[in-house]
């Protein structure tokens, strides 16, 4: 597969800067922006590396995007990079959200404010779904094969989104089965 030329950050400060820029654009979640900034703009990761790190971030307990930021920072610059990523991602948004929390009570009853929040919520949902579509291409080269990959993705969507199964059950059950199948296919 043809990979685009990958770049790498020069210093831990670059990491803090990029994660800060990402966080400040991330209304309703940082994931869609993270894919755009890390893969398409900075080219620190390929599409499939992004997906792999996201998987790791999802499976490990804790906030996915923070886990992913720490791991990326750590891979480039060790614990200094991890700290830079965490500070970049969290510091400015923390100040903003606390300021909003203090202002919130004053304006919550305005219909325009409530409406804007709903509109932003709908777009946030679309951003997450759109990002998933962008990453689907990464499954083509998956050793699982296309059909089993599609089946696992669909079953996960149904189990979590519609049947509301607990996350632990899905990750251990379906995830375990999927990893076992991949293990078997890789050994042939």
């Amino acid at each position: 597969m043809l990979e685009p030329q990958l770049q790498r950050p020069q210093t831990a400060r670059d990491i803090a800067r990029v994660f800060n820029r990402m966080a400040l654009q991330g209304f309703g979640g940082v994931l869609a922006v993270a894919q755009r900034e890390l893969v398409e703009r900075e080219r620190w990761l390929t599409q499939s590396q992004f997906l792999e790190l996201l998987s790791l971030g999802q499976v490990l307990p804790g906030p996915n995007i923070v886990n992913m930021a720490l791991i990326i920072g750590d891979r480039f610059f060790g614990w200094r990079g991890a700290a830079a990523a965490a500070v970049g991602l969290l510091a400015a948004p923390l100040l903003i959200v606390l300021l909003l929390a203090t202002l919130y009570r004053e304006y919550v009853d305005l219909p325009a404010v409530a409406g804007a929040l709903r509109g932003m919520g709908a777009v946030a949902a679309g951003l997450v779904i759109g990002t998933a579509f962008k990453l689907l291409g990464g499954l083509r080269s998956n050793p699982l094969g296309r059909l089993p990959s599609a089946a696992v993705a669909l079953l996960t969507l149904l189990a979590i989104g519609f049947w509301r199964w607990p996350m632990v059950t899905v990750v251990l059950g379906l995830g375990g089965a999927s990893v076992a199948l991949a293990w078997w296919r890789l050994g042939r």
Partner: protein
Amino acid sequence: MNALLYGTHGLDGGVLLALFMHFGMLSLLAIGGAITTAPDMQRFVVGERGWLTDAQFTSSVALAQAAPGPNLLFVAVVGWNIAGLAGVVATLTGSLLPSTTLALAASRYGDRKRESRAMQAFGAGMAPLTLGLLLATGWVLTAPVRDSPGALLLVPFTVLMLLKTRLSPIWLVAVGAVVGALGGAG
């Protein structure tokens, strides 16, 4: 000013320690993100301790979702509303320290073994699950607006714009905010 800095319960060491411990325990259970532990946080701070009302808890989560930055920051708003800045430190460090330590240890271990069959199988096997989870998260996020045709139209519009243009997501969020403020998502 005191209520701002210390919240409604004052700088009570017992409250802070309890917050730190409970959020720290949930941190290690938060597979799929901090938001998956929100129901248990609510049970603890609203039901068991009575530090916040239901409405205060729900608005804390909604506010952090709408603000820029990781959704995890709703734990900071919860801490802020309970015990001011000290509460923020308690809930945020509680939510972050255990999971970040584990994430870094796991990542370094995985990196050393990255050519092994087990690690390759892990990456390949989990990738479709991760995509399924993203789709499910997107679906769950549409829950508050499913009664509004205008807001529901914004979802496929956003997906299309994200896939077919190079517009930054922040502009799409701005479109959503304007449409919503004008009453289009009501």
